[in-house]
């Protein structure tokens, strides 16, 4: 186990960088329709910001902001959003994941609503990818014993 090493420069730079990285990640997810980007990429960037927190500070500092319970819930929540959108399409009378039918409950025409449905599932994918990256990183680096906060 590596001993914790506090460095003022790294911590200050990371404190400034992390909000910018997260903002950029949300931009990549939300702007995926018009530029390169989407759920997978944005989720990876968002996960990287949490991993940067662990590297620059320590695990407990990160877990105070993003607890492990929330992390595990988010892993399932992303898949759930994706699957529920598909089930919603069935309930409205179309095929599974055919977003065109969503215009019955969202007041736009049936073409625009496809872009909206795409955005919803991209958000679901992004949530899952972010939580999975953080969870795999934490469990692999600490052999699953990250209560003490040592890296």
């Amino acid at each position: 186990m590596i001993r914790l090493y506090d460095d003022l420069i790294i911590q200050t730079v990371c404190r400034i960088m992390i909000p910018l990285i997260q903002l950029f990640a949300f931009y990549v997810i939300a702007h995926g329709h018009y530029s390169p980007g989407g759920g997978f990429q944005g989720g990876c960037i968002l996960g990287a910001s949490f991993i940067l927190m662990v590297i620059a500070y320590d695990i407990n500092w990160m877990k105070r902001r993003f607890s492990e319970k929330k992390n595990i819930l988010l892993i399932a929540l992303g898949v759930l959003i994706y699957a529920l959108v598909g089930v919603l399409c069935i309930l409205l009378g179309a095929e599974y994941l055919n977003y065109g039918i969503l215009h019955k409950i969202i007041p736009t025409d049936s073409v625009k609503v496809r872009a909206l449905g795409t955005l919803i599932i991209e958000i679901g994918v992004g949530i899952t990818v972010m939580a999975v990256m953080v969870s795999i990183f934490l469990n692999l680096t600490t052999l699953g014993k990250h209560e003490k906060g040592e890296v």
Partner: protein
Amino acid sequence: METVIGKYNYWIYIALMMIGFYAMIAKRNLVKKIVGMNIFQTAIILFFISTAYKKDATIPILIKSQEVIDPAQYINPLPHVLMLTAIVVMVSTFGVALAVIMMLYNQYKTLDEDEIIEILRKKK
């Protein structure tokens, strides 16, 4: 000469793929095997991306002001989609494989394949 200019990209991927294949079948260390598998997958991803390319074409993001859309102007989006998902599968298989290897190391205190088999034989 034309064959070389037209096909050299495939040969690069084959070289990369064979490096990964060699690591997978010849190395004894399990982590090296997993890294070989990753190199193999990278070669396949590069191969798919290169099939998507068309000469003088741009990325598949359409320009709004354009009236008639000519498919020859945009590169093929389909391999990009498939490889986008394949990259994520690569990451998750890598994570799971490392987790399994860490459990094996905890159990047998070695990463060498032959030694693990030896220990298993002795147990019988």
